[in-house]
């Protein structure tokens, strides 16, 4: 039957940890398909996870994300880093199939043994994808890559959440559509550790950079001031600066609770917990919850208190 030609025994794990590509590829397949063999691999490699730097790239379609990732990989290679790439594309909501086309722009790296690229379909379950992507990152980490890049299309809130698998999140936009700042919604700015304005050779690039800078630096100073960097992915301009910014961010948040596999796990658990409570509250027909909603609708209870009460109820419900 399918894919049972190999088994994750000790010899397999040893070859995986040494970075053998075929072994890594098949292990990723098991993990992606959430099979028992995948779980075995993940259990066996846990202590080897944690040395890779994980960088997420996300942004709307047309921003030049894949080209920029390819240029970033080239820059990393020139700095002697080995790189794993997880490139996520959406599955068709109608057929469940997908065209995984990110590799078209990554052709220069195909025959570089220091780069491993894997295309992954979202399979319609974005929450589940975050979990799968995080586990794929873990196995690439364990097999020895210095940097792992996760690339996704950011078209809505959930897609940006996939970028949360990363320790450093790069959000890409492009200049000069006037309203394009509309496209840069609140959630995106919060997520971005680094903002990139790609296609910076286009007019209004500088304007876009200033607009983003003011939006990002409104309000009190945070631990990390998100820089806005101009790039032209097709020529490589600005990519060195981007790589430096990723390094700086990594150094600034070098803390087990902000970066690394423990932090990834925390973010995943937060995201899954919020999903679960949201579903319970939204779909419940529990009396106590109904009463809370009715009180708010009648103006007798404020939202803040209602939310506190609903969370407690939601947390206890089956």
């Amino acid at each position, binding site marked *: *039957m*399918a894919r049972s030609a190999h088994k994750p025994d000790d010899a397999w794990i040893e070859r995986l940890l040494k970075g053998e590509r075929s*072994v890594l590829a098949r292990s990723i397949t098991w993990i992606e*398909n959430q099979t028992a063999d995948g779980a075995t691999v993940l259990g066996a490699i846990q202590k080897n996870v944690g040395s890779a730097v994980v960088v997420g790239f996300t942004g709307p379609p047309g921003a030049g994300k894949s080209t920029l990732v390819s240029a970033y990989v080239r820059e990393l290679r020139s700095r002697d880093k080995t790189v794993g790439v997880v490139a996520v594309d959406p599955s068709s909501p109608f057929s*469940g*199939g997908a065209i*995984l086309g990110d590799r078209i722009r990554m*052709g220069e790296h195909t*025959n570089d043994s220091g780069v491993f690229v894997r295309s992954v379909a979202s399979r319609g379950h974005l929450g589940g994808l975050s979990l799968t992507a995080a586990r794929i990152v873990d196995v690439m980490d364990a097999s020895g890559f210095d940097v792992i890049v996760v690339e996704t299309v950011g078209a809505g809130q959930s897609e940006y959440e996939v970028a949360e698998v990363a320790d450093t999140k790069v959000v890409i936009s492009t200049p000069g559509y006037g309203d394009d700042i509309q496209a840069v919604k609140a959630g995106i700015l919060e997520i971005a550790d680094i903002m990139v304005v790609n296609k910076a050779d286009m007019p209004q690039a500088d304007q876009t950079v200033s607009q983003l800078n003011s939006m990002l630096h409104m309000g009190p100073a945070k631990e990390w001031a998100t820089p806005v960097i101009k790039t032209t992915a097709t020529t490589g301009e600005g990519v060195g600066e981007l790589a430096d910014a990723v390094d700086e961010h990594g150094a600034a948040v070098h803390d087990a609770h902000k970066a690394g596999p423990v932090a990834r796990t925390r973010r995943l658990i937060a995201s899954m917990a919020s999903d679960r409570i949201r579903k319970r509250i939204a779909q419940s027909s529990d009396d106590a919850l109904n009463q809370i909603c009715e009180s708010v609708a009648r103006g007798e209870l404020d939202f803040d208190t209602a939310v506190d009460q609903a969370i407690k109820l939601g947390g206890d419900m089956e």
Partner: protein
Amino acid sequence: MDDRSSPPKVLMTKIGLDGHDRGSRIVATYLRDAGMEVVYTGPWQEIDSVVTLAIEEDVDVIGISSLATDHLVVPRLMKALVKAGLDTMPVVVGGIIPDGEEAVLYDAGVAKVFHPGADRDQIVNDIGSLANSGHSILAPSQ
């Protein structure tokens, strides 16, 4: 553990100097609409690249599109696959292949040859069955 509840994964690629990729794009769409995941690479891949792609993406089937006369590159690809440990990987070839040369492809180990005008359902079913046959990613000695 059978994981055929996951979609079949197919590599659609073209080797050689032929730049026409309309055929492979159309078939890629058929396969996607039939629920498969298609790693689409576009034209001008080298043989070594195809092997690397097939390994990294751990695809179930390799689909080669060939509209010019470089389909004879395929036997070289088959040898490269064996050398890389992928001797059980199903390979299909689609495009303009003169009758005489079809036999050469089958002899080289190609699983199926599709000519222009091949029936869409036929293509989808054949590739789907080949995807289910499972393949080893390492040669027995590796």
